[in-house]
Every structure is written in structure tokens, then in C-alpha cells.
């Protein structure tokens, strides 16, 4: 399932809406996902405090990461406004969670999905698949069959060229953000490539990795904490990635982690689940 439009350099970026959303509009919670089938692509929903929320629709690998039945999800989002979708109140995100538009419901474009992290461990109680409901008219960028998207028919993109670096060379930092409890930087791994390319270009003397551990302030006031090992796992996984990408001979790689929890405010928590690479020429 190769997706042409996937961009390794996609970043989670803060939008102005992050500041605008009030606490009453925020929805940060952990719940079982619910899959609502339709006559086309299915919708992903979640129940929280007696209400049903719409998260997004099935998409391609390059889109947002839909939930998995068999696991709970951490949802970090805010009310999107607009009509219900598949029976749920639509949530959206302060961050760019998908680099491709996912589709429309009843002719209206769907909002950017909230940040959704699949919890690490199994939960067999998360197994709700609702049969297709004829009231819901969802059009996905891609339907349940083969792709019709124009992107599938384009010519292969040329390989990305390494960036040109000119003197004076400075210390540069690269930040990767992660899903909750994950050491795989699914959306931001391109930053590691940038760091490796920069390190090669400047023949870096040292490269420092530091992994961090985050938490999320949930809407009920409680705190969801990442597993204690996650900072180490992020740092070590990133070190393996850099080794495989290739680092300058003679450069010193230091790998550290801070298992202390980052502060949580219920707004910028997805950004604090991170690791940094600092390249020193």
C-alpha cells in the first residue's frame, strides 16, 4: 500500500485555532473506537460521557491514522462545529493530522481529524462495528475498492535531493513528535532524514539525541501518562534510524532520554511527545 502523496517531512504544526479553542470546546479522552459502516467508506467514532463523536473516515496510509478495533484510543481534539457526521459530533485538531483531504459527508468537506493515538496494549472490549446505515452518505478520497484518485496515476516523483548547505554552518535542532506511547515517528520521521543529511553536509562533529516522555491533560481533569520507558525507546529507536540513514565517519553520537513527564495543558500535549536531534558542525 504505497501512497504517493505521503510526505516524510510532514510536521505537526500549531494552528491559530489552538489558541482560540476554549476548554469547553476541547475533547481529550480515552475510549473504545466505534466503526460505523456506510454504503461507501466507514466512519470512525468514539463515545465519551454519553455522547458520540465523529473522528474521521477510513483513508489511505498517507492520511490520518484511523483507530484499531481491539485497542482503545486517546483522542485529542476540539469541536469542529458544523453538522454531525455519521451520527457523531465532529471533532477536529489544532494540528495538521493529515496531509490529504479525507472526503465529504452529505456534500460537505470533512474537517481535519483530531489527534488519535492507538493505545499500546490490547483491549478486547473495543469491538463495536455497526452495520451500514443508509442515512450516512460519505464520499472518501478513496472508496472501499481500488483507487480512483488522480494521485495514483501520476508518474513517480523524482527522488528528493539532499538540501544544499552553505557556510557558516550552525548548530541545528530537529524535532520529531509521536503518537501517545509510541516510539515510531510515523508522521515526522522525515526530520530524522533532514538531520542525517545536514550532519553529512557539514561533517558534523557531534549529534545528540534526546528522547522525552509526555502526558495529556484529559477533559475530565485526569492525566494520561506515557509509559516510563517511552523516552528511552524513542531515543534508542531514533539512534537506530540515524545509524541506518548514515552519519559522518568520526562524528560522536550521544543518546539520552528524560523519563520525567513533560507538563500537560490539554492543548499542546501532542507536541511534547517528542525527541530532538541536535547536530553540531
Amino acid at each position, binding site marked *: 500500500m504505497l*501512497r*504517493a502523496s*505521503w510526505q516524510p517531512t510532514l510536521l505537526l504544526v500549531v494552528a491559530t485555532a489552538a489558541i482560540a479553542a476554549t476548554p469547553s470546546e476541547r475533547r481529550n479522552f480515552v475510549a473504545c473506537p466505534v466503526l460505523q459502516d456506510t454504503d461507501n467508506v466507514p466512519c470512525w467514532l468514539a463515545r465519551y460521557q454519553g455522547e458520540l463523536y465523529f473522528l474521521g473516515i477510513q483513508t489511505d*496510509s498517507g492520511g490520518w491514522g484511523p483507530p484499531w478495533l481491539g485497542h482503545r484510543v486517546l483522542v485529542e481534539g476540539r469541536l469542529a462545529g458544523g453538522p454531525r457526521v455519521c451520527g457523531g459530533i465532529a471533532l477536529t485538531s489544532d494540528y495538521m493530522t493529515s496531509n490529504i483531504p479525507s472526503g465529504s459527508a452529505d456534500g460537505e468537506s470533512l474537517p481535519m481529524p483530531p489527534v488519535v493515538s492507538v493505545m499500546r496494549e490490547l483491549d478486547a472490549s473495543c469491538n463495536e462495528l455497526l452495520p451500514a446505515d443508509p442515512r450516512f452518505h460519505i464520499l472518501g478520497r478513496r472508496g*472501499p475498492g481500488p483507487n480512483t484518485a488522480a494521485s*495514483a496515476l501520476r508518474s513517480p516523483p523524482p527522488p528528493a535531493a539532499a538540501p544544499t548547505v552553505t557556510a557558516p554552518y550552525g548548530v541545528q535542532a530537529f524535532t520529531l513528535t509521536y503518537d501517545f506511547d509510541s516510539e515510531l515517528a510515523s508522521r515526522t520521521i522525515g526530520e530524522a532524514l533532514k538531520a542525517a543529511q545536514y550532519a553529512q553536509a557539514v561533517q558534523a562533529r557531534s549529534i545528540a539525541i534526546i528522547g522525552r516522555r509526555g502526558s495529556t491533560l484529559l477533559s475530565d481533569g485526569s492525566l494520561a501518562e506515557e509509559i516510563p520507558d517511552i523516552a528511552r525507546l524513542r531515543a534508542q529507536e531514533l539512534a537506530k534510524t540515524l545509524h541506518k540513514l548514515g552519519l559522518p565517519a568520526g562524528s560522536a553520537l550521544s543518546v539520552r532520554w528524560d523519563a520525567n513527564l513533560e507538563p500537560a495543558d490539554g492543548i499542546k500535549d501532542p507536541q511534547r511527545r517528542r525527541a530532538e536531534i541536535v547536530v553540531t558542525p
Partner: protein
Amino acid sequence: MGADYWIAPGQGTVLPAQVRFADASGSVGTQFAHGPVTMRGNPFFEPLGTNGRACVSCHQPGSAMGLSVVAIRQRWQETRGKDPLFAAIDGSNCPSLSQDQEASHSLLLKRGLFRVSLPWPRTVGPDGSPVEPEFTIEVVRDPSGCNTDPKYGLSAPDPHISVFRRPRVVANLKYLAVDAGANIYGAAGPFNAKRLAMVMDRDPESGRYSAMNIMSDAREPSLRMQARDASRDHLQVREPLTEAQLQSIVDFESQVYAAQQSDAWGDDFAAAGAPAALGTENLLQSPSGVLGDNFGNPAFKSFVPWQQPTVPPGDARASFHASVIRGYDVFFNRPFWIRDVTHINTVGLGNPAKRTCVTCHNLQMVGTDASAGWGDLGTTNEPWASEAISSPGYDSKPDLPLFKIVCKPEARPHPFLGRVIFTHDPGRALISGKCYDVGSIVMGQLRGLAARAPYFASGSAPDLRAVVDFYDRRFNIGLSEQERTDLVNFLSVL
């Protein structure tokens, strides 16, 4: 199967540029792009090692460059088990068994399975990077005896795990054995586009990123390394192959095409007017690296030449053509819930995902996954791989080893089986060391199928109907009897 079905190492004759062999559905063809093959002196055909085998022993043109269990059994009968194919090292259930007993070769004779012995615990990856296993392995059941063998088992001084796998097809490799991103549409540079955050292995000899689609566990990043290691592990060479031998093998393998070449109704797929994806010539001529899960470039192109407005009553050939077309339609267009498949449902599709067969079998002409395609379909992990469930075509006595995998607390668990997994073959996890990869196997190509039963890496499906039935059980698809027949007919002409 004709008398010429078998090419023996060192046979020394010349293979014409195109050869055909009768198979279960008509004939299978093998085509050599560089013309007739002089086998004398070609290291692919010469017994280079100490056990009398050559590469061709397990990659026979008559089996679409794989090896059917029918051919294996016939060879056993003709040679009374003395053919080098049955070498103790991997052609028997365990080298420590009495080699003159048929029962000692039961996995090969029954399921076409060769023993693959891998060091465990693994400490280094194929590209030299360190590996720290995230799980422990306990032997629960060991019918072959090799995993508990004091010399060859997991407790031996040089501990190894024995798993049993089918040989893969050495043909159509321009579609598979490529640099990552060299000609695969949309590849994400050094990263595996499917797994997003994973850097592809590099070929340590060329320094280039590998597409990691050659072996069932992706352990060899290049054809050259595969040939080198296979000569050691399967041919038992005393000295490493020379550079010239390795290059000769790679050059030969890179120009071989194999596919079904005619059907049971006499349709010649090499003839003008045949459907555009069928036969070896079309494989040779078509471009590689084309993503086929879309209407613009469908995976197996068009079967329009076989379409008729109506099928005349009693016309069995036209009925077969119509069935193949319906089977392709099911393969391409019929949605079902793809569920609990590691590296499919976990890569941005969600679990389950409402999709079709071509979602995963998406590389045009061969039907593999364009991105390094290992996934846990359930062919080696319980519960789906329970032999009583997965192999109803065989008797009920378990043939395969059963391992208990326990993931370490800090490891990312298997996404759908958790931290304790029962498996016949941990697959990719034996190379990556990752709990997440337990039971993940690299998808095999869908060409020349009729000539090389049984199917899946574990040989659990004795025929194409068993393959279709497995998918129907696995994903609760609800295929009708007609749809099953149509899918089998479609697969049989590839």
C-alpha cells in the same frame, strides 16, 4: 507432468528461450530474456557444493521456478529418496534423523517445506546493525525434533531455530528485487512507505536501500547476498562462491520470467489477442514498479479479449473465460473487512479496513505488495494457523513446530495478539527481533501458481481452493460457491 519435468544439477543440456511444462491447469511457461540457456558452466545449474544440489534443484522451470510438491514426490519415487533434493541439511525434518526413512522427510514430501535454520537469539541484522530481541522463544511442540535437538536446536551450543518454509519463485524478479524507490512508484526515499518510520535495509555490498521483497522474512537485501547465503546453507559449498559465480547467478535470475502459459481449454497466452497480463512475454515486456490498486493501472490489466456479450450454452471454454473475468472482478472490486493484519491494518488504514484483495496484492503483473510486503495474515500464527483450521486438506496430526513467544514488558506488543503468541514460524521477527513482527511473512508473487502447489510460506494450502477458503475463513468474507470457483479459475491463469 512429463518426463522432462526435472532438471538435474550438472545436466548440461541447453534450455530453449521458451519452455513449457504441463501443469494442473494447462501449461506453465518459463522464458529467458537473453535467449537459450547453456546449462553447462552456468552456476545456477551446476552442483557447486558438497551435497550435489544446484540452485535449480529447488527452482525448477517446470514448477514456475519454484518447486511443486508433486515434483518433489515424483523425484522421491524415481530416486528412492537419493536425489540431492532430499539432502539432510534442509531436505529432511532434521539432519540428525535417519535419512533413509521417508518419515524423516515428511515435511518436504507432504507440504513441500524445507528446513530454514536461523541463529537465535539474533544479535545482528542483515545490514550489520545490532538486533536486540524483544521476546523469548519456548518450544511447545516439536514434531521434527530439530528445535529440541542437542546439536541443531535452540539449546545447542550454537543455538538455532528451525522453521519450515516453501521455496520462493526465482522469476519475474525485475518486479521484486529492486532498489527501494528505484522504480517503485511513490516510494518514500530510504523509508518504507508502508511502515512510515522504518528505514529500509541497505545492501551492505552496494550501499543501496533494498526493497526487501526477495525472501519470506526479508533477511537478504539483494539477489547477490541471497545466492551467497543459499550456496552456504542449501548447497553446502566448502568455499564461498566467487564474484564471477555470484554475478552469473544474479544475471541469470534477473532475466527469467515464469507464468501460466496456457489454460486447460487450449488458450495460448503467448498468442496474439491473449489478455495483456497473461503469459511470460507480457511479464517480460511490461514495466515494473507500477502500482496496480487503481482503475488507471489495474493489477492484472484487462481481460477484455475474453469478454463476450453472452456465453453460448454448453460452451465450456467461454464459460471458463467468463469465470476468470468474474474472479478478477472479485479480486479487484469486492470489498470485505480486512482485519487484524499487522503491517496492513496498522499502517494508516485502520482496523478493520473495508477494502479488496488488490489493496494488498497491489503491484501490477505480480500481485505482491509494492512496499516491502511482510504482514501477519495468520498463516503462521495461531489461532488462524492452527493446523486443524488452516490445513483441512492434510491429516489432523500436527506436522509443524509450535513456539510460544513471550514479549518483554517494554516491547511494543504484537498489535492483535498481544504479548503471548503461539506460532509455527515467527517469520520476520526472527530477523528484526521485534515482537510486533511475529508471524509476519513477505507476500509471495501470484504468477505460475498452478504449477507450484502448495501455497503460503508454510505450505498450509494444498491447492488454490484451499487458499481461497483460507481467506474466506480468515476475513469472514462470505464468498459464494460461484465466487470461490471464479477466484480459483482467475488465479489458475496467472
